[in-house]
Structures are given as structure tokens and as C-alpha cells.
């Protein structure tokens, strides 16, 4: 708790074994692949030491375990999805700075719509909009307690977990920190075109 932003942070980018997800990482935006955009943004962040691309294992938790086993020493780990090419060095620096006082923090954006709990085709309740956020799958966490949490979650035999559930099951509180709506995932060709337009219009947080 109370980490300094100058402590060493390891960036970890877990890949998915899903072939369609892999293919999407090779789509190009202004001549560079989606994965290159994501990795390059991280390489430009002085607070980030090494950037590790984690090859997929049989499930997400084992992917993380395998990558951390051979990863260089670091005080904190920054998990980042590979398919968010409009992430930026400036945005990540700001996030790491704001996250420094917390054992774990996640990048989010506020939701824009009103959300309802719906059961059997009927509205059950309206959730207060100011309490809801969309996760951007960017998480920074202190390494030592995270590794303990990860091992514990794996021992419990959970195969459907991820870095967020590992933190939550170990009681590591995750602070929500605002990101940018432009840090969106590439899920379809339409998203590639969106990214191209955003870059041309200079709407990605520079650099």
C-alpha cells in the first residue's frame, strides 16, 4: 500500500488462445498492427520497465502464472489487454500516478446509458447511473500480494478467473480510476476504421 509511482512496474499483456482474438491483433492501423500499437504505448512509459507478452496457457490464471514465473523483478504489475491500440503513454502515466496510493487500481469509464436489472422480460430495478462503470481491462497491482492471490485462486481450482477475480477473492481492494472512451477494444473491422479516424482527428491522448 502507498506505492510510489517511481517503483518498478512490469507490464504484462496476456494473449488469448481464441484464434479470432489472435487474428484481430494482426489487423493494421496506419501500417502497424493492433498489438504493436498497444506494446509501443507501454514502451514509452518511463515508469514501466519490462513489457511481457504472455503466451496463452489452458486458462487465464495459468497464463498469468506462467508469465510471472519467468518475468523480471518488479514491485507492481500492470495488466493490459492486447487489443486496445488507442491506449497511450500519457494516459498510462496518468493512470499509474493516480493508482500509486492504492494496492490495486483499474481503469474505467462512466457508463452513458441508464442500466436496468431485467428478469423474464420485465424491468426489476434501475441501477443508479453514477455507480456504474465500464472496465477497460487495465489493472495495476502490487506484485507480491497479487502472486499470493493468484496462487490461492489456482489452488481453489477456479478455471474461469482472471486478474480481477484473483484480487477480489483475496480481498485486495481495486480502486476505480477514470480512463478515456477512446481506449476501446478492437472487436471488429468497424473498430479498426474507428481507430484510424480517431488517430487522424488527433483524439487519442498524445503521445
Amino acid at each position: 500500500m502507498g506505492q510510489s509511482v517511481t517503483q518498478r512496474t512490469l507490464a504484462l499483456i496476456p494473449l488469448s488462445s481464441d484464434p479470432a482474438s489472435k487474428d484481430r491483433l494482426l489487423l493494421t492501423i496506419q501500417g502497424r498492427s493492433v498489438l504493436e500499437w498497444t506494446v509501443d504505448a507501454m514502451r514509452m512509459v518511463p515508469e514501466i520497465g519490462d513489457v511481457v507478452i504472455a503466451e496463452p496457457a489452458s486458462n487465464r490464471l495459468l497464463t498469468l502464472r506462467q508469465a510471472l514465473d519467468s518475468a523480471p523483478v518488479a514491485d507492481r504489475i500492470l495488466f493490459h489487454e492486447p487489443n486496445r491500440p488507442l491506449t497511450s503513454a500519457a494516459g498510462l502515466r496518468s493512470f499509474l500516478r493516480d493508482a500509486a496510493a492504492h494496492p490495486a487500481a483499474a481503469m474505467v469509464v462512466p457508463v452513458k446509458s441508464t442500466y436496468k436489472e431485467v428478469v423474464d422480460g420485465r424491468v426489476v430495478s434501475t441501477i443508479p447511473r453514477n455507480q456504474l462503470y465500464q472496465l477497460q481491462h487495465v489493472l495495476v497491482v502490487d506484485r507480491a500480494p497479487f502472486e499470493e492471490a493468484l496462487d490461492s485462486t489456482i489452488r481453489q481450482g477456479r478455471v474461469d478467473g482472471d486478474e480481477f477475480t484473483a484480487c477480489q477473492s483475496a480481498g485486495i481492494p481495486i480502486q476505480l480510476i477514470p480512463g478515456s472512451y477512446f481506449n476501446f477494444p478492437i472487436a471488429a473491422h468497424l473498430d479498426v476504421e474507428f481507430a484510424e479516424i480517431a488517430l487522424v482527428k488527433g483524439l487519442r491522448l498524445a503521445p
Partner: protein
Amino acid sequence: MSEPVAVAIVLAAGAGKRMAATVNKVFLPLAGKPIIAWSLECFERHPQIAEVIVVAAAAELEECRHRVLQPFGFKKVSTLIVGGETRHDSEFNGLIHLEQRIEDGSIDLVLIHDAVRPFVTASMVDRLIDEARSSGAAIPCVPAADNIVQALPRGQLSQAPAHLWAAQTPQVFAARLVLAAHQQAHRDGFKGSDTSSVVERAGKSVAVVQGSYDNIKITTSDDLIRGEQIARARPRSGEGPSLLSAESASA
């Protein structure tokens, strides 16, 4: 006495703070026409909608008239009325404008629509009207993406409730039901984030009709890019499978 009719109230009085634009976003161009004109065109062509009321900011009534209503010649837009401080206040103003005709039974259905949702389609309106005529209240919704979370009071992550759906507009109600619910909310000082929440609070059941991920709300500058993409790619009728997914449709 003639058959009761359905009236659409289009809310256009938003301040658009999140867009950081100098003009109200409903007037921003989207593929060649103002954002508000897209939904007004849908209602203009829809055979079951008899009339449209536009609720605009007091300072923008003339702009609305000159930039939208006159150039596009919307014949069903009968009145331009002044909105309130909040979305809730604006829809209340719209309903009060119709109060007498709702009470005497000449209006039986009211559709309440956000002008910043340009991609409402005729078939969605059909489904909503059918459901509202049968059950009294119908709203379009889409299943939420799986990355929605809830914040605890100190800003920490917590699981969002299960069975979460994103509500859209137009929201369609039996006219007397929504008027009574709003009058009750007004007496109690309650303000809802959408029309449905006012009706839910009055204890009425609200049915969910399948919306579309393309029926986006243009709130921030990224939505304007998405809007341009949808406007270019969708067929002229506006019908067809959704171009966006839960993941790519913005929060």
C-alpha cells in the same frame, strides 16, 4: 370522437457538457444532417405516430426552428416547447403540454425519445407500440457488456448486479399511466434518470423489447465517430442486423 393517437415527445434540451462542443449536440451534423433530424425523420414516416412535440432549451427554440424544423419540413412536429433544467423536467413539461388531451382520451400512447439517439428504426417503434398497447409500458434494451462494474461508496470495484441491460429510447407508455406517474414524482420531488424509472417508481410493470446496439446515444466525441460509421454503413431504411456489438457499442 376520433380514434386516440400516439404522440412522440423528443427531448432536445440537453446541455451536452460531455461533448465539449460550443453548440448543443442535437444540432451537430451527422452524415449531412443534424443529429435530431434523424429521429424526427423516423417518426415523420411512421404511420402509427400522429404528432411530434420537440422540447428544446429556451435559448435554442429559434435555432431549432431555423436549422431543423423549417429546412426539413417536418409536418408532424406540431409544437416546440421549452425544456426544463434536467431531462426529467423536460419530459414533464412535454407531458403537461399534452395533459388535457391525455385526460380526455384523445392521446392514448406517448413515446419519449432522446434527440441524441439518431438510429431508432421503424421496426423498433412497431415492436414498442405493440407491447405498450398490450401491457402499458415498453422500453428498448440491449444486454449489457460483461465488463460493467459497480463502484462502492469509496470508489472501489464491486460486482454489478446480474441480468443487467442498457436502456434506450424511445420509451413508450400508456399516456394516462406515464402522466400520472410523472405527476406523482413531481409531488414527491423525485427525478428519474429515464422515463421508465418514473413509471417503475409508481409500481407499474415495464416490459423490455429488444433494442439495437446501433441505437447509440451520442454523448461524447467518440460517439460522433461511431454515429458517422453507422450512418454510412446501414441500409437506407435503417433496418438490418446491428453493426456494433456489446463490446464496441460505447458504455
